[in-house]
């Protein structure tokens, strides 16, 4: 985990040139689809809906590209859009029966089967832990712990007060750690 407030390296996806002209949509799409995809998944978007939601994110990006300040890092801006898309999606889906979906990862040939299995299982475990968080805390946690965005930048990207961002991060960490402790205890009880 990184120390809140410190961010020694630039964000991935920063416009290298910090030119005044924003990149066009195809350029953003090519470079950031994977990031958007992972972000949507980390925010709890169901696997069958990921393509739809990724499409929706880039439609919003297209509509609001004029609002994007190229001097700012791109990914927190994209994250804010993805968060709103997921939030809207969850609001629309909230009356539907929720079926916990098995998270199936795309198979990758590079790692050994054991590594792949273990990595996939670890990712699924983390997603379950994140599912225990509400979306606000989850967003701050994902942005900071996985995207390594400093908290002040998170507060700016999500338009929340800085103290609120720190508070959400602290509570999210505590919630996830508590979930892990409960998970390990349950596993031990089952094994005994």
């Amino acid at each position, binding site marked *: 985990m990184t120390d809140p407030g410190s961010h020694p390296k630039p964000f991935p996806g920063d416009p290298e040139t910090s030119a005044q002209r924003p990149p066009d*949509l195809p350029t953003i799409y090519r470079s950031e689809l994977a990031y958007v995809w992972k972000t949507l998944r980390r925010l709890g978007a169901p696997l069958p809906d990921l393509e739809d939601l990724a499409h929706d994110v880039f439609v919003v990006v297209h509509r609001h590209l004029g609002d994007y300040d190229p001097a700012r890092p791109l990914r927190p801006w994209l994250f804010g859009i993805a968060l709103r898309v997921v939030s809207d999606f969850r609001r629309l889906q909230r*009356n539907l029966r929720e079926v916990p979906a098995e998270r199936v990862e795309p198979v*990758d040939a590079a790692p050994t089967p054991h590594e792949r299995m273990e990595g996939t299982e670890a990712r699924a475990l983390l997603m379950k832990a994140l599912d225990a968080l509400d979306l606000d805390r989850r967003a701050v946690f994902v942005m900071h712990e996985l995207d390594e965005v400093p908290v002040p930048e998170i507060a700016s990207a999500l338009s929340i007060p800085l103290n609120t961002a720190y508070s959400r991060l602290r509570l999210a960490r505590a919630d996830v750690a508590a979930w892990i402790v409960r998970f390990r205890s349950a596993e031990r009880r089952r094994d005994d």
Partner: protein
Amino acid sequence: MTDPPDLAQETLRELLDAEKACPDPPPEVGQRVFTRLSTSLGLPPGAGDAMPTSPGPTVAPTPVRTGLLRRTLAGSSGRGLATFLVGAAVGAATYGTVQHIRQKSELPAPPAIVTAPPAPEPPSRPPPPPPAETAEVATVAAQPPATAPSRVRETEPNLGDARDRGLAAERKLVEMGRTALARGHTDLAIAALRRHTQAFPSGQLAEERDSLLVQALVAKGEFSQARQRAARFHRQHPHSLFSPVVDQALRSIP
């Protein structure tokens, strides 16, 4: 016996490392989404040509640090492995089946959506009882939640907002039209979009619907009607982001 907090933190770090090494989506997904975007936004063909065609080195996951994580998972390694594999297989099969059913059910006109269109409610009106805009939504809404209520659900405001569900119904029709158009089923596309016009004449997605309708009419060969619709589109939405798509469709008329 409980874990000391440090152990939970270390496990968490390992889980986070595993997630950071998550592979990118397959290239074909990128192509599919880009094709849809091109249809929606009228992006020039070939704009996505430089889409990554292979996962590349960035996807190769770094080996997961497996100290505590291995111990965390080890207690249930045999059972966990079997459960995971069975779960993954069942999940994949279910997903495939659902996708198949969804594809089959999207093209024929689902009657439930159209029969009882919910008029978009003015914001000042008190929240009305849920209108029966779709049998599907109404049916599932009547069912109790299948999972234990989470904190999210407890803290969310009252479920069921007519405006949201109206938008969902709108989106469903527009998506049907878009999908049918992309597959070359122009009649189905026009039918779905006209149902949207009847149900939501001034809906939130009216602009997108009208642009799709022009494209569908052009694709069907109804050129004069397409021109009329396009003229009306430009009158009603003079600064629309979909204007380039509409103009492009008109330019394709021989």
